[in-house]
């Protein structure tokens, strides 16, 4: 379970005054649940995700508690947190093939042997009927293929939670529904909590939360 408590994000202005960007009193996401954060751009949705991920935010000051399955994450590095991510663009490293990306994702945490890792990745690609893309570079993939393989790689890293930032906005409408449904199925199957940011209601799933006039995040 992912818990965020008493979070406040302030943006630093030039005369080093802090202005409140976003506040979140309490959010819990159950394993297998997807929570969608909605709101117009510029309200700090992505900043929230970056904070959860553990990125260093030089232009902001933050306070708040972050727990994952009872672990306190606030002092942990990105690598230690075990949170996967899927962004609008660039989920795959452009200088590696699909195979290399998949194996690269598994290497740090997987207890499987190398050949088992290959098998696992191939099996997952097989389910998508994308096996022939194994040796291709990301720029040779179509949009839908790219998104799916990107999520696949993120899941191969065995995350304990997943963050999604506008994951489907680069896809055209027809493909979008298909990829979206597939993605949520995968997340449910992985039984990990997921937090998704989007500005498009059609992409939303499960519980929806929003940023109100007081810059507080509340249930929609």
């Amino acid at each position: 379970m992912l818990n965020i408590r008493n979070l406040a994000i302030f943006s630093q202005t030039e005369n080093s005054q802090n202005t409140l960007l976003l506040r979140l009193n309490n959010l819990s996401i159950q394993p297998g649940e997807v929570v969608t954060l909605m709101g117009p751009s510029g309200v700090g949705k992505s900043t929230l995700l970056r904070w959860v991920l553990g990125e260093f935010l030089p232009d902001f000051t933050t306070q708040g508690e972050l727990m994952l399955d009872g672990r306190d994450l606030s002092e942990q590095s990105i690598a230690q947190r075990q949170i996967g991510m899927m962004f609008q663009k660039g989920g795959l490293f452009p200088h590696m093939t699909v195979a290399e990306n998949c194996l690269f994702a598994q290497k740090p945490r997987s207890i499987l042997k190398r050949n088992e890792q290959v098998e696992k990745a191939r099996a997952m690609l097989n389910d998508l009927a994308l096996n022939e893309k194994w040796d291709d570079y990301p720029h040779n993939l179509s949009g839908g293929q790219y998104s799916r393989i990107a999520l696949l790689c993120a899941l191969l890293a065995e995350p304990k939670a997943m963050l999604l930032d506008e994951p489907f906005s680069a896809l055209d409408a027809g493909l979008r529904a298909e990829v979206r449904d597939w993605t949520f199925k995968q997340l449910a199957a992985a039984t990990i909590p997921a937090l998704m940011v989007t500005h498009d209601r059609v992409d939303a799933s499960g519980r929806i939360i929003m940023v109100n006039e007081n810059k507080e995040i509340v249930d929609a």
Partner: protein
Amino acid sequence: MVRALSVAIKFVFIVLPVSGGLLLLLLSSFSAESGLTHNAVYTILSERATLVSTLLVAVVAPLMACYLALWLALGLLKLPRLQQLLSPVLSVPHVAFAVGLMLLFSPSGWLIRLVESVTGLLPFPPQGWPLPEKSVITVMVALVLKELPFLLLMIAAQLKQVPASSWLTQAQSYGYSQRQAWWRIVTPELLKRLTLPMAAVIIYSLSVVDIPLLVGSNTEALLAQRVYEWTFQFSPESQSKAVAGAWILMVIAVLLLFLNSLHSGLYRKWALTKALRKQWSKTTFSDKAAKITWITFGFLSLAIIVVLILQGLASSWFYPTLMPEALSLNHWQSEWHYLTEPSFNSLWLALTSALLGVIFAVVLLQHQREQKQKRSLNVWVLIALFVPQVPLVLGWQMLLGEHLTQGWNVLWVAWSHTVYTLPYAYLVLHGAYTQFDDKWLIKAQSLGYSARQAWWKVMLPMLKAPLTTAFAIAFAVSIAQYLPTQWLGQGLTPTLTTEAVSVASGGDWRIGSLYALLQSLLPLIVFIGVALLNTELRRTHSKAKRYAEHS
């Protein structure tokens, strides 16, 4: 760690060499005969012809190269592969390039011989040909053509960071022609990013000695050329003139750098305010002309290499014959045995100093990345490129003093080369390195890699292209070094370049061409290797297959 390293590198390879050289200049101007220096300044300033041609070369040549490069760069955006055409020209050292140019276009060059062989009108080389063997114009043409590929390469690097294509599309949707959009929207941004490469080009044009010595006028010599000559004359007048001349060069350098810093701003203002002419119907003509220029440029670089090869194989070759009387390997055979040492020295010096230059540049850039606010180009790293070389190297000799006679010269030569490879590597790498997207590093860390592993496994491989290009440029820079190699090496490190320059002093271009060719060959191999590494290896998926098969 990075911080400490970066401080050490800055001290040993930037502060020490530059301040050492400048200190010597200060000392010698305040020595006993400072009154003489004072007079010398007036003497030099009263020689208007020298100053005018110096300024002409240092201002006009870089500007022409710059705008020619910008004009051609639209082709680069449409067909990035054109970039590979630049490698052969970049790898030919300046002097060899100038010689090749003369062999082709001087009054007794190939072009005229061709005319003579067809028409029979020119039993003697013509007089009054626009590109004479010796003139300020000839120097400018050589400089423009040689700087052009460097600037194009710099633009190519910037084009990867400026979303030029989408800007062009958007501007075209407003009704601009593609060329108009290019000059008004993309060019101002490119010029801003070209300020420092342009500074390097300007200072190079101001302080270049070998090209004017070869093809420049010797009665209206350029200032740097005269400073060089005065340095080797031993009367107190000449010595004080050399010092005074070096100071004047520095003052001009500062002035030109200041003007250069205004350049992009002025251009931007012009681009914003200048009224738009009606759709320029000749747009397609301009595009065609650019295409033809690209092709000509490719042919030219090829022709230069061919003519150098022919010259190196010629047993004798007199005007007006189109081809040498006979081709033989005589020169190659007689020199071959003696080429091993200089080739070996050139090679390891270039490999070492290029590798060090790139590594050090990466350390400095990494340090800059870690200080999030300071990502802009650090001018101080480039300072060695802004100081004329003669006083600088004389200063190093003074600095090293006794150490130079203790047989460790290889070390000092490698050090001096690194002083020059570092700023060029930094210049080439800066954009790609500082603007590398943090998201990739974070992504790798989210997978469980440490920050260092992420840097090593994700950032370096992704920056392979700029890293290898920086290496190739640094390699070529090291190969071309003459003064530091000769003066600090004390003959213990003869390189292809020191041999080429001394052989060239005898005017025998058959042997000269041979050395010039070899001198070009090493960087050419590196450039081609880099090009292969960056394109071919990418396409073969052997690596991924290996993973699959070996598992």
